[in-house]
């Protein structure tokens, strides 16, 4: 973009939209000719962490019977402790607000330490049944560790691991791949849906409480994103139910959509807003479909078909309005 950047800034100046000082400042900065590898190197770090931890995971799985368990456990334990030692030594300790580390590696070391801890606990359970038949505990303990790490070291990635762990403890999976592929089967399992919705509500309540005591308020978006997807998907998949209970789920969806409408304005979070609209739109369509299901369509289906484009034009107009309002609000 080089040749045009200069020219555009010059144009802005020519139109008297930026001052001469600003122009000079921008020119000075551009003459530094900065080519930042910040994103690329951080990405390399996170990929290397991912590769290393999964490599270790598979290594342990494959050799679970051949190498001595004690040796394996010891190595894992030493690496984990080393990582944690380094992290604790170099972190500034617990803080209620957002903290930035001096070293860019710390974030990734926390991640490694955390993942290795989870592998360690899993290994203990499968080999020695430390938790006996309390399989829930084997999930809960890594979750608690993750929550601790997330809050202590202020690490968002570890927080997402912790939340997925919490969901796994309840009995469903909220990793992006699984929740969108509908692997959880909320439809076949009503009690799971109730607990999923409860979890979503709890996450929301926790964010409200965090705001009150001002504890890591920048985590709010992570919690709310999970809550939105969990509640919406659980209630939408239950709206196909034959029993009358589907109306209850429709109401839940309506309530959550209203809440997220409000909160996304408050946080100026467009990702929440857009997904809220999409889920609400799906919900409305299913609702209409369920209502019309009982109507006699033989006579009027041609008319119905003709009305479809008008329906879509109507929805597009509505969407444009919604997005416009939101962008206006954000710009303020």
């Amino acid at each position, binding site marked *: *973009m080089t040749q045009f950047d200069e020219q555009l800034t010059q*144009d802005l100046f020519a139109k008297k*939209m*930026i001052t001469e000082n600003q122009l000079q400042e921008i020119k000075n900065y551009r003459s530094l000719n900065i080519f*930042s590898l910040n994103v690329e190197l951080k990405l390399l770090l996170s990929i290397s962490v991912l590769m290393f931890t*999964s490599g270790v995971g598979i290594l342990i799985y494959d050799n679970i019977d051949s190498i001595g368990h004690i040796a394996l456990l010891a190595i894992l334990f030493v690496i984990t402790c080393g990582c944690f030692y380094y992290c604790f030594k170099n972190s500034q300790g617990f803080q209620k607000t957002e903290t930035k580390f001096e070293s860019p590696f710390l974030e990734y070391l926390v991640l490694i330490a955390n993942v290795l801890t989870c592998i360690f606990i899993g290994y203990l359970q499968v080999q020695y049944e430390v938790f006996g038949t309390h399989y829930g505990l084997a999930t809960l303990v890594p*979750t608690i560790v993750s929550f601790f790490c997330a809050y202590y070291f202020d690490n968002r990635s570890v927080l997402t691991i912790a939340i997925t762990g919490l969901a796994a403890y309840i009995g469903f999976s909220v990793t992006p791949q699984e929740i969108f592929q509908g692997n959880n089967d909320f439809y076949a399992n009503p009690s799971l849906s109730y607990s999923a919705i409860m979890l979503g509500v709890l996450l929301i309540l926790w964010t409200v409480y965090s705001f009150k005591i001002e504890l890591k308020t920048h985590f709010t978006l992570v919690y709310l994103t999970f809550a939105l997807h969990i509640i919406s998907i659980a209630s939408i998949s239950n709206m196909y139910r034959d029993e009358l209970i589907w109306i209850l789920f429709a109401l839940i969806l309506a309530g959550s959509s209203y809440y997220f409408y409000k909160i996304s304005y408050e946080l100026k979070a467009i990702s929440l807003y857009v997904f809220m609209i999409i889920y609400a739109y799906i919900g409305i369509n299913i609702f209409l479909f369920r209502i019309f299901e009982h109507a006699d369509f033989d006579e009027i289906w041609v008319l119905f078909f003709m009305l479809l484009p008008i329906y879509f034009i109507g929805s597009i107009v509505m969407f444009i309005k919604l*997005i416009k309002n939101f962008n206006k609000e954000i710009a303020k």
Partner: protein
Amino acid sequence: MIVHDKNLLNNLALIEEADSLESAGFISKEQKKIIKKELPSFKVQNNILVRLGFFLLGSFLYSSICGTVSMIGLIGSTSFSERFFFSISCFIFLGIGIAGAEMLAKNKYYRHGLDDAFILGIILNAGGAYMITTESYNDTPLGLAIVVAVTSFLVYYRYLHLMSILVFCLASTAVLFFGLYEIGDIGKTIMPFAVMLFSGGFYFFTKKKIKNLTEIYHYNAFVLANSFCLVLFYLSCNYLVVRELSAELLSVDIKPGQDIPFAYFFYAFTCIVPVLYLVQAIRTKDRIMLWISFGAIAFTVFTIRFYYSVLPAEAALTIGGLVMFGIAYVSIQKLKNKESGLTFKPDRIHHSNTFLNAETLIVASTLGLKPEIKTNSPMEFGDGGFSGGGSGGSY
């Protein structure tokens, strides 16, 4: 030929510049607001999620209009009129697409999502119309590729639609591919070299064009075509691609101990080109090329591992992870305190807008894997297995 007002296009570029200057902290928010107010522009959706949503809605609208038209066309039809309608249906849909795209463009919709739906619909229906009129369902799709390439180029030139250029690039590659395929065995044999020369030549052509470009609204399209050439150049003589294609097209049966002709050339090409890209990208400070070189390096590793299992997967992962961590560590230590040129400090101007989004997206998807590896495994313990632990399709 361009439907959009050129003043507005220039204004759009100015507004985007103001946006990036604002996020870099050079100008104030109020200033940006004034700039936005003073320069009339298009209805643009910059948020990819919103744009995707509008694209979906636009596609619904387009297909529902087409559905209504088909129903009117088929009411009370005989089998003759049915066939007649079928033969012209794609042309009607094409007309609807053009009408929609024109109308949206006249109403200053640009990069909005709605226009994407109609413009891509034009290309799709042009291809469909060609298929139906020539009834060439079983031939090699050379004609189809030509039609799509021409249409997408015209569509780009009318609406300045970036995605059409991607379609154009893919379709032109298909024209080249099927053209050589039609020639016969000679064409199939020289295919890698022909594609290599073609993409190399086109790369330098577009590069020169970018240098002498005066209209800013064509810039992105040329950059896209330029990057496409880079990717195509690497893939054209990649060992894996060449070997699998020659097995497919020439039905060469490669027995153990044998290799394809010129194997050493392809091996060398596969290994050298990514490194070349990487060096060139860092030398010329070309970020897109840098990312392409990352992709190429990954594909080279995949190519080698596809034929030779140098190390078992888990050892390769562990060691690879350690090596990559080491490389990143050393590079960061080296670049940490540099203030100009190549550095680790985030770029004020270009960091925040495009690449921060890309970073969050990529990190989010990589992290999406982690819970699967991890939190699933404790769940699986209930069954007494460790099968979720890492092997579960995360690669």
